[in-house]
């Protein structure tokens, strides 16, 4: 193609100007910078606060324990992030963890090898995610209705197949997974780190990631450009289910048994971590590091308050205050 310079249109200077990096001062004055990094700012703040008030908080042993305790929530927050990025929400996440754990426990008790049992658990929770996605897209039912429905359905299913009873899982592999470590971190922490890295690459360095954000941002526009938004959404929910399966394995490893009890705080904290991480609940804007750090921050908060002997009554309150504050900050994101 030739470029006839003499017949240039009204634009005086053509082409995109050079990439300009905003200065640090400009960055610090930009409200959306703080909104994007709310979780980091919060985490640093908490570390300083707790570090001063309770020196044990900064001990290597406590920091290691803190990371270990955060691993499950980090994995779940990543799953929730993919769904929230499509402007959806997965309320069945904690229930899927429970079902994954129960299936792992029962399969193991039925004589399956522990690896096979773990695979089965992950397959089951991924299938739940797939089901969520299909119901939401093909059934044209709002996400929170579908996942609320599967939340209840899974709860029942978990009780039915487990008979309401916990199952011991005495696997040495899982015991090692929970208590062993490589380098400075325990294995669950490495699992969480791996999840963060893989999810970050998927979100920022693959076509799927761009299509996910496009679908969450403006689904109609994305569809007009030939992006199969339904498939993208189904994939997001399936990823969420997959993460629930990984979390279920970590959970069973950590507590040594599979129990048909749903830990609702896992669900609430996964959403909270996503909000703290600067992910827009309206979709289209997401990061992986943000929610991971958000999860770390929520865990650090409970850890610090426990070390400071603050009554358990005040801990949910503190989490609530922080999440609402973060949501307020998000309003300045634009």
């Amino acid at each position, binding site marked *: 193609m030739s470029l006839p310079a003499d017949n240039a249109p009204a634009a005086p200077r053509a082409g995109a100007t050079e990439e300009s990096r905003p200065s640090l001062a400009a960055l610090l004055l930009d*409200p959306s910078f703080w*909104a994007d990094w*709310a979780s980091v*700012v*919060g985490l640093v*703040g*908490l570390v300083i*606060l707790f570090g001063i*008030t309770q020196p*044990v908080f900064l*001990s290597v*042993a*406590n920091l290691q*324990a803190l990371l*270990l*305790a955060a691993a*499950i929530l980090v994995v779940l927050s990543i799953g929730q992030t993919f769904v929230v990025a499509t402007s959806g929400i997965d309320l069945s996440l904690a229930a899927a963890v429970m079902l994954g754990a129960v299936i792992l426990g029962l399969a193991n008790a039925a004589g399956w090898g522990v690896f096979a049992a773990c695979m089965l658990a992950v397959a089951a929770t991924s299938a739940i995610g797939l089901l969520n996605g299909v119901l939401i897209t093909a059934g044209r039912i709002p996400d929170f209705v579908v996942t609320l429905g599967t939340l209840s359905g899974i709860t029942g299913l978990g*009780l039915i197949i*487990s*008979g*309401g*009873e*916990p199952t*011991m899982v*005495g696997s040495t592999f899982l015991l090692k997974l*929970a*208590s062993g470590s490589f380098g400075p971190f325990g294995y669950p922490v490495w699992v969480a780190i791996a999840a963060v890295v893989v999810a970050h690459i998927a979100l920022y360095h693959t076509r799927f990631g761009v299509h996910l954000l496009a679908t969450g941002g403006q689904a109609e526009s994305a569809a007009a450009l030939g992006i199969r938004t339904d498939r993208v959404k189904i994939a997001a929910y399936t990823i969420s289910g997959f993460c629930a399966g990984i979390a279920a394995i970590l*959970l069973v490893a*950590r*507590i*040594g*048994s599979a*129990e048909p*009890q*749903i*830990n*609702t*705080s*896992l669900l609430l904290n996964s959403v909270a971590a996503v909000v703290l991480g600067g992910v827009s609940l309206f979709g289209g804007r997401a990061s992986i590091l943000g929610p991971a750090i958000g999860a770390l921050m929520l*865990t650090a908060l*409970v*850890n610090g*308050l*426990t*070390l*400071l*002997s*603050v*009554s*358990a*009554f*005040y801990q*949910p309150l*503190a989490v609530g*205050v*922080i999440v609402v*504050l973060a949501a*307020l*900050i998000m309003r*300045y994101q634009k």
Partner: protein
Amino acid sequence: MRIFNGLTLGAGLFATVISASAQAEEAKVAAIVKGLDNPFFQYMQKGIEEQAKADGVGVTVQAAANMGDATGQADKLTALAMQDFDCYLTNPISVSNLVQALVPVAQKKKPIVNIDSTIDPEQAKAAGFGVSTYIGTDNVAAGALAGEEMLKLVPTGSKVALIAGIVGDVGSNARIKGFKQAVEGKLEVVVMVSADWDREKALTAATDILQAHPDLAGFFAANDIMALGVERAVQTSGKEVKVIGLDGIIDALKSVAAGELSATVAQYPYVVGAMGVEACKAAAMGKELPANVPAPVLLINKDNAEASLKNFPRPGGDYPDPFREMLK
């Protein structure tokens, strides 16, 4: 603006933190109980705190966020294990969820006192520790007490119905088992249903059962909440059917005193917590603890309901307490 928000939040937290500063005592006890969203564990916490004050022991009580928060409870215990407590008082959500968190405690050779719900001894052994003592109520014995009371209330050969908690719940099973053993061959159990520890579900179930068995003489519900629901159904039906509950919560005691519920079997989470603190103090003093100590269980009927209410959440009368003897 944002920084300002952050600072406000930080300052708020800081204030909370300062107000909760620690005090110096001769022994420091860390207690971790189940969710404080249930009055049962609130009384347990009260027992722990009041006994600690009476004995001059410092205590920190932490709890899971809810009854499903198995990992959260473990995380909190892990945090407590970082600090220098002389004894750890634990009421685990499941038989295994605290096992790993207790390993560092055992490595520091600090005594572990297990109250209310048991820690699986085999898993503990595999992890390399054993609990110093277990203090808890015998649910089978409590159920049997209820069964014996039922035998006194209704003629031999009468029909009774059982309302259980969540399917498969260990506590519910044990209570029902105790009741059945006590009435075996003397009363006819016509039906057993699960009402998930829920008052409304128990009410609905009891209404249906009363329709199906018009000649029913008594109900046993595996906890007081459900018993109160059953009692409501019985009142609505206008029939003279005896209802016995189990737990000894304050509403049930009031109901017994008012002549509605026939009886309840009271367990004392307050005493379980208090005995736990005594056990911790004894252990810190280097005493040898008995492996298993039953917490008191008392049958409350019209005769002693008023006295029980007056002393609530402590028992209406004295009870055997081996730790109290040790500390003398």
